[in-house]
């Protein structure tokens, strides 16, 4: 069995994002980046499947500028067997959207005869939460989004436990399938120095979108990116009547 894991390079979660002066996006220059935390979880799960013997090969894939190779090196150091970098630079990267990424993953899944494609449930930069679902639809493979548990059942099926409102849902998917990782799926390991050094020798291939025959032109235009409004201080009401009054007159609530 072969697993492909998507690992996106994003602005580190500890950094407070700042909107660019021209409102086209957030400042990324000179800002610390790291692997999208949910992708890290997906990757950890992929590596555990390999360690359990259920999976033979784990391939990490990242689409974006050259710096993504560092993210891929991290993935290799954590335990992925090989990596594929899909270079997308400059303006093309700024407008790279989930649909284009999903098309890239569809092609890579087919070319590499993957049985399972793993993603983080969303990337913490654009919060799109679309790539896994779009990839599943394009491949016409079953999907298990927001997985909190994942196990391979006998080689032809996977069992996915999803955290949903009000409880847990357990579903069984026929392979090949697409699964996205939720926060509690697996706690990522630390890349040890010995493994970081070993990762230097693991293959990291390049495949451009053109080579894959994927059109990455954007379908959505970003009009403006704004800072969230600063939260204003609250007010104190005297009593319940005061509260009802405010709700009616200021919050526009009708009873």
């Amino acid at each position, binding site marked *: 069995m072969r697993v492909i894991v998507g690992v996106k390079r994003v602005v580190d979660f500890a950094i407070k994002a700042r909107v660019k002066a021209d409102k086209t996006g957030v400042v990324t220059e000179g800002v610390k980046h790291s692997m999208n935390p949910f992708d890290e979880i997906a990757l950890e799960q992929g590596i555990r499947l390999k360690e359990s013997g259920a999976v033979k090969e784990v391939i990490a894939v990242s689409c974006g500028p050259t710096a993504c190779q560092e993210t891929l090196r991290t993935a290799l150091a954590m335990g992925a067997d090989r990596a594929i970098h899909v270079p997308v630079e400059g303006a093309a990267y700024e407008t790279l959207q989930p649909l284009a990424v999903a098309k890239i993953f569809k092609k890579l899944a087919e070319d590499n005869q993957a049985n399972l494609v793993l993603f983080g449930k969303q990337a913490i930069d654009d919060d799109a939460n679309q790539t896994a679902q779009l990839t599943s639809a394009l491949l016409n493979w079953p999907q298990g989004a927001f997985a909190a548990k994942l196990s391979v059942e006998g080689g032809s099926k996977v069992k996915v436990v999803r955290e949903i409102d009000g409880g847990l849902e357990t579903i069984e998917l026929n392979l090949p399938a697409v699964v996205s990782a939720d926060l509690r799926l697996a706690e990522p390991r630390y890349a040890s*120095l010995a493994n970081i050094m070993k990762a230097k020798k693991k293959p990291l291939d390049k495949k451009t979108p053109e080579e894959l025959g994927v059109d990455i032109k954007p379908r959505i235009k970003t009009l403006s990116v704004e800072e969230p409004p600063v939260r204003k201080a609250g007010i104190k009401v005297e009593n319940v009547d005061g509260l009802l009054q405010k709700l009616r007159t200021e919050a526009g609530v009708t009873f």
Partner: protein
Amino acid sequence: MLSRVALTCARRLTQSTAASIQQQHQQPRALLSMGASAARAAAGAGSSKQQAYVSPFDERPQLTDEHRIFRDAARRFFETEVAPHHAKWEQDGMVSREVWEKAGAAGLLGTTIPVEYGGGGGDAFHAAIAVEEQLRLQLSGPGFSLHSDIIIPYILHYGSEEQKQKWIPLMCQGKAISAIGMSEPSAGSDLQGIKTTAVRDGDDYVINGSKIFISNGQMADIIVLVAKTDPSKGAHGTSLILVETDRPGFQRGRNLKKLGLKAQDTSELFFDNVRVPASNLLGKENHGFKYLMQELGTERLVIGVLSQASAEGVFADTVKYVNERQAFGKSIASFQNTKFKLAEMKTQLSVGRVFIDRCLELQNQGKLDPVAAAIAKLHAGDMLAKITDECLQLHGGYGFMWEYTAARAYADARVQRIYGGTSEIMKDIISRTL
């Protein structure tokens, strides 16, 4: 970006990360008079200002992708596995054995030790990164660098194959904790004056004497002991001997109360007719002093590296603090005194960083000499003292409070001019060449 916030909250619940450290550690555990929400709002407002200027000197040209990946892993380790427990360890006067084993499993111990002995197979910059990520956050408890970068090399460089096979893998896994016993009640700077003896008796050495101020002393499983095997020959009668701490006649004294390094154990050790097999001798008999002279340079560079990192850490926290704190209706960062102090510190730190990194480069090439190592330790120790003092001052009363990193950095800084050879001894070494 909603998930960024959600993730931070969720991670704080599950594993406690950078964001939570900022609250638990870097910044006050209990905000004294400032309201917690006001402080958080201020933190948000202040932080956006900082990323603006990136100096070409902020980039360390020696670092490769492998170093950066290792740095991320090390940072995450100290944020999640060490920071949340540090306050408790300060109370206990020592860290847990568990954190040693976790560090071993995460590949943070013995970073420069060859892979065949269970080490990381890295270079001096990997070793530096491990200690920098620890000290930037003022997490002085775990005695990892002493163990990894000072003690394991003694066994690696002078030990027999059998000694290496037996101890180094366990030490890299954090399953055997080590200490080095040089200083004695009557001999610190003057190591030639030590009185502990190891007398040959058949196939054994019989050890008598005592050691003082020994780091990792309470936790150690194995000690590299400096003892006189031929007291008549002075320095040339000194040997290094491995002593397992479960040998009869060995006893640990109490865990000494200290001005700083609160979560690190420091002890007296007593040897009363302790028998060890002669095969525990490290290298050749009576060559101990030579070995010490060869390795002390590394020890001094390590102290230089950690002093530099601690100073950089407390400086970064202070820049943030002065941007948040208001007095006389404006941010204290806007006072000319504050600006000048910060500018002076930034200058010191930038210049110091270049020297330290050059020493690490020389270390990689096997060319670091005792004088350069002494300069690194002397300069970084003095700079750290000055910077922790200024940073504490800029914090006002908050800087005197233990929950602020400024207070902890200040307390921990003092010893960097004492152990591993005092500043006076460093000056002596440097001046001998002039």
